[in-house]
């Protein structure tokens, strides 16, 4: 990985640094890599849209096959899926997955120009609905339905900041007290500045290979990707999702048994042939502190409305029953969109190899990631020893 921050350099530099580090860690030469899967940024012009080629060129053209993937926050998982599918199809033995971004300051906003048919443009123009406004709608529901408090929201941040302070790749490495968080300015009631993830620069990369390749090369300390899910919602999707101003209608067709986010994760469990009870560690998309609590339930790590109980018990902290976001999560990283889903898998890899140092979840053997972005994109990856 390249450390997250606000470095203001070209995104390619972060991606290449992460890629070189991943190759060195794996003990694989760049010239051996047969496939590069890039995760695209939308913010950095044409090259960002063809990230596979951009990263391959920056590493030095080696004649490999490439793909470039865009799926909002799930772009990184889509790149992982692209590389994994090619390996599983027997079309290549070793692949490199890279995602990196350089972001502007402040709210994420649509790219420039008038686009009155683009739902992402319309929600800003017509009603001024930012991403944190959606996160706040979900948070207010949690308060109403499950009794989440301002102190719970702050506790998620305190927990994740403590973990992030131990992570050399995290952007924010400062610990916070409950009071610090509760006194930070309100952005979208009930969410405060320190409940909402920032936008960051960063890069992450993974080397994927077939089991045969790993054995032949004698690669040590590998982990297995057991499942990658990028499932869509099932109609009618009755939960408000960015960037839409309205949900589907449930007047004629009843809502599906599994709403979108839980469907994404359960599709991964099904592919891996495991269940949430088998999970030792989770990296979930805490776009806001409240969404960490939502995801804990949506990933089946506890029942609906029970996540606050886990949090208050310390169950989701490092050393607890089911640690969540031992990397520090988005709260400590800020979002570098195309890199984020890859970074989640990097953290699980270190956790499963026992290399996470002071953040180590003792004895972790199975990890799950969950993430979600705009336009019905979400992903979940399951990794095991």
């Amino acid at each position: 990985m390249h450390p997250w921050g606000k470095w203001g350099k070209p995104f390619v530099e972060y991606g290449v640094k992460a890629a070189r580090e991943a190759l060195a860690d794996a003990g694989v030469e760049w010239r051996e890599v047969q496939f590069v899967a890039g995760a695209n940024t939308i913010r950095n012009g044409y090259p960002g849209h063809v990230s596979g080629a951009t990263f391959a060129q920056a590493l030095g053209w080696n004649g490999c096959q490439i793909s470039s993937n865009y799926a909002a926050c799930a772009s990184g998982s889509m790149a992982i899926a692209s590389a994994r599918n090619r390996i599983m199809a027997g079309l290549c033995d070793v692949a490199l997955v890279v995602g990196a971004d350089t972001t502007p300051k402040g709210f994420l906003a649509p790219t420039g120009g008038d686009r009155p048919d683009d739902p992402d443009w319309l929600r800003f123009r017509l009603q001024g609905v930012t991403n944190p406004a959606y996160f706040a709608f979900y948070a207010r529901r949690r308060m109403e339905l499950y009794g989440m408090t301002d102190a719970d929201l702050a506790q998620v941040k305190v927990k994740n900041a403590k973990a992030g302070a131990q992570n050399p790749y995290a952007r924010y490495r400062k610990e916070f007290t409950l009071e610090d968080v509760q006194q930070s300015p309100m952005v979208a009631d009930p969410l405060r500045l320190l409940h909402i993830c920032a936008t960051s620069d960063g890069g992450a990369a993974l080397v994927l290979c077939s089991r045969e390749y790993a054995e032949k090369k004698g690669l040590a300390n590998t982990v297995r990707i057991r499942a990658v899910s990028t499932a869509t919602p099932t109609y009618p999707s009755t939960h408000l999702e960015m960037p839409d101003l309205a949900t589907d209608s449930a007047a004629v067709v009843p809502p599906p048994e599994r709403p979108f986010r839980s469907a994404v994760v359960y599709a991964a469990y099904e592919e891996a042939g495991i269940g949430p009870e088998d999970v030792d560690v989770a990296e979930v998309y805490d776009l806001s502190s409240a969404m960490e609590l939502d995801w804990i339930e949506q990933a089946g790590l506890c029942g609906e409305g029970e996540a606050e109980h886990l949090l208050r018990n310390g169950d989701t902290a490092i050393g607890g029953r089911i640690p969540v976001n031992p990397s520090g999560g988005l709260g400590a990283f800020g979002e570098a969109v195309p890199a984020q889903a890859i970074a989640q898998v990097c953290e699980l890899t270190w956790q499963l190899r026992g290399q996470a140092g002071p953040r180590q979840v003792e004895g972790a053997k199975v990890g799950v990631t969950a993430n979600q972005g705009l336009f019905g994109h979400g992903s979940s990856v399951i990794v095991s020893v």
Partner: protein
Amino acid sequence: MSKTKVAAKDGWFTLDEAAPALIGSRCNGCGTYAFPAEQVYCKNPACDSESFEQVELSRSGRIWSYTNACYQPPAPYIPTTDPFEPFALAAVELEAEKLIVIGQMTPDVSVEDLKIGMPVELVLDVGWEDDEHQYMVWRWKRAG
């Protein structure tokens, strides 16, 4: 000279200022509603219909959730006041259509006034203007 009022997004709502309504669609095949109105293919995967009736959606509903914008949203949002004044936002559930629609609340209420389940109704307001036009948008207003 008074400015001409036009919809900020054509075809999304009526300009009847006394009783405005969002314009949605009802599928002639399966009967499902959609907002904005479906134009081409029904989104119900079990329905092949390409034929829709335009319908005015319920003018009132209940707050599903709410929040506010303490900071000015970025472009393409056009602020209505300078300096920026925070506004409240509501996601409102329409009972008959069983769907949720987001809108700004009218400026007379702040986030502290809102509760989940509170009844609201649709009104029109000026979103922004130029030399000749007022571009109208929908807002939710506390009912009663």
